[in-house]
């Protein structure tokens, strides 16, 4: 069977640099573009119309401003093809300045003003949203609370689950990987200059669940391999082997999920369906980073941490309590102390001779 032999721990600095680079680009974009919240969260109004022929954005802006007395910014999407009928139309989106909502009468007034300015361009209302600012703010708060609750619940799950498989340190790095994913999804919105909206919340929550799943599978393997490969195996080898063994599965699941959501993205872009693209693009990024953060970030960090702990311990052990090491070794699955006790007699795992062979074969 084709087994991967990627040296994840040794390559860790490459991965860290990739992540840091993305974060850096994201931060720079964030400083330049700022964080935009959708009107769902801030309140405000956005109107979209289809039209035929040619229009000037400035003239449209003036028409809207004169009818409502509010500044407006206008963007035009040309040659939008309908996936249903194949008809092509031009769309114009008008965002009103400020966070106040508008009344149905206002919307009628805007359409009237547009038709007056362009009598032959056949403006037709496509979509319009008007959100009251206080409703928007409480919705925003609700979303934040929901993400926090999700994070808390997942942490509780991690705590319960990792007690068995890697201890608090592993749990901590699992959470770190989750934060990494949230950051990546956030920066996707920033870099592509999409306003944060309900899609952002949906993607963040989905990716939290999706990425954690990956992490748990890998740590589960680490625990299993600790038993199979014996306590003497260094963390570096243990974690690398475990990641490589689960790599087929991680990468295949990620490919399938990516294929599915990328199809949505491509079809959505072809037909210029903004709401579909705004959902699919960050989800695509999330699926990739969800897999990446686990394999390339959480695993190697965990090794670094355990090695660091060992170093400290061996320094401490060197000075005192020689008897302690063998005693602890006899206690069984307290891996850190075992490896630290390099002076302790080598203890092959007693039973399980067959799996041990397997472990050796893989190492070769």
């Amino acid at each position, binding site marked *: 069977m084709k087994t991967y032999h990627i040296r994840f721990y040794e390559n860790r600095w490459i991965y860290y640099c990739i992540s840091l680079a993305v974060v850096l680009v994201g931060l720079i974009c964030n400083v330049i573009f700022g964080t935009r919240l959708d009107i769902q969260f801030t309140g405000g109004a956005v109107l979209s119309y289809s039209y035929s022929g040619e229009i000037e954005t400035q003239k449209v802006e003036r028409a809207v401003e004169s009818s409502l007395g509010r500044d407006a910014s206008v963007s035009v999407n040309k040659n939008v093809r309908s996936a*249903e009928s194949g008809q092509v139309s031009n769309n114009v989106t008008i965002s009103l300045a400020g966070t106040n909502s508008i009344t149905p009468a206002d919307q009628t007034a805007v359409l009237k003003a547009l038709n007056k300015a362009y009598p032959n361009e056949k403006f037709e209302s496509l979509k*319009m949203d008007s959100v009251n600012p206080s409703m928007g703010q409480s919705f925003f708060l*609700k979303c934040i609370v*929901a993400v926090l609750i999700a994070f808390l619940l997942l942490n509780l799950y991690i705590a319960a689950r990792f007690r068995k498989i890697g201890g608090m340190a592993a749990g901590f790095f699992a959470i770190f990987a989750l934060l990494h994913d949230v950051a990546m999804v956030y920066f996707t919105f920033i870099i592509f200059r999409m306003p944060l909206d309900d899609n952002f919340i949906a993607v963040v929550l989905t990716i939290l669940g999706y990425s954690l799943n990956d992490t748990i599978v890998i740590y589960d393997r680490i625990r299993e391999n600790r038993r199979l490969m014996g306590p003497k195996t260094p963390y570096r080898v243990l974690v690398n082997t475990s990641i490589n063994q689960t790599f087929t599965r991680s990468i*295949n699941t990620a490919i399938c999920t990516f*294929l599915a959501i990328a199809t949505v993205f491509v079809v*959505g872009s072809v037909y210029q369906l903004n709401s579909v693209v705004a959902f699919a693009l960050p989800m695509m990024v999330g699926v990739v980073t969800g897999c990446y953060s686990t394999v390339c970030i959480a695993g190697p960090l965990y090794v670094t941490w355990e090695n660091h702990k060992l170093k400290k311990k061996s320094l401490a052990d060197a000075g005192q309590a020689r008897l302690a090491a063998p005693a602890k070794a006899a206690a069984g699955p307290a891996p850190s102390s075992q490896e630290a006790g390099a002076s302790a007699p080598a203890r092959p795992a007693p039973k399980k001779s067959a799996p041990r062979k397997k472990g050796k074969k893989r190492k070769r």
Partner: protein
Amino acid sequence: MKRVPRPVFFIVALLILFFTFTSIFGIKGKNGDNPVTYLKGVGDIRWGIDINGGVEATFTPATSQKATKQQMDSAESTIKQRLIGENITDYEVYTDYNHSRIIVRFPWKNDEKDFDPQKAISELSATAVVTFREGKEYTTQSTGADGNPVYKTPKGVTASSVILKGSDIVSATPQMTTNQTTGRAAYVVSLKLSDSGTKKFADATKRLKNQIISIWMDDVMISYPTVEEEITNGECQIDGGSQGFTAAEASSLANKINAGALPFKLTTTSYGVLSPVLGKSSLSAMKLAGIIAFCLVGLFMILFFRLPGVVAVISLLGQVGLSFAAVSGYFPFLNSFTLTLPGFAGIILSIGMGVDANIITATRIREELWTGKPLDSAISKGDQNSFSAIFDGNITVIIVAIILMLVFGPKNILSYWFGASTTGSIYSFGYTLLIGIIGNFLFGVLTTRLMTKSLSQFSFARSKWLYGGPSEKDKTALKGGAAV
């Protein structure tokens, strides 16, 4: 390992195909001239307003005081009454008493070309005019969205003779009484009139004894009780006639009558309108994306996992079928669920995520085969070892799916604190994600295993290569390697 008989594969596969086929196309027949739907398919799915086009509006009372629950109920029943009167089916109305909000969603009417949503919103929130009129003469009769007849526009004496107006009514309350003759519980609506109303009503009931006084909201008749006696003290009861009211009918009528005397106007705080043009295009695009995604994932699975890949595709079909069945109302015990664009994307996403269970199991089986285990024990060992990983993965996604439904759903504990969401399309995504996970468990674990085990009993399916195990060539290479 426990042997699974050979026919099991065909039984399970056929069942899945049948289920998926019916959940997509439904089963429809004809009873005389009426089409009858026995099982609902994709065509019966209730699409959200982002697909069908439609209106989403939030109304709040324009008052500095907090509206009481009863007042909000009245306002809600006014809106419902008008939606039914307009023959708008499939509307959703949620009332948030805590934040004094009424959220209304209704789709575009299919038959109406020049539907003016702005006008519809204004009309929905207009203050209700409730009148008590003489007789019950009406101009038009039609069938409302709830199946009951709708009588519209008073004429003749009913149009000219208005007995009471909404402001004459102090309160209308639903009450339970005991029928004197049958001894059964009966529901009535108790009216309390103002002083001016009492006088007007006494005169009218004296004049119109044993005749009908009809009650109207706006342009629609909501009740037409017969006067049984002269009412002089300004207090009376409307009973449901010979059939009697149900509790719901009584409170609905009381709410509507109260609406005529509401001390506030409703204003539109937030609203959204979507034209069906945009939505129809999105739906076609999503259908296309769904088909392509399924083919791509299926192809990948078959190329990479061979026989377990084929089994996975069959299971995946079942999972997709379940997703559609869960939203269309295919199962009698599951209500239909409004499917939005993100909801549809959720179904496609769970096609990708859903094969995870199959991938984990197939990868494990492959590993066991490469350690040299015979086929049967490799399969059962692979099944055993993969279960905890599959379970873990599903639990975390279930947690987030439920939270998604909590944030974006209409009525729940989070809405109690923060009020309803300004947008509801993600609610559907949470639901389809959740159903996808359940489907993943049901099909990706249960039916996949049954099918794989049963299939492995066939002689043509004994080759380890079909499961990703070493072929004969690999085996000799492996042996040679081991000998070195």
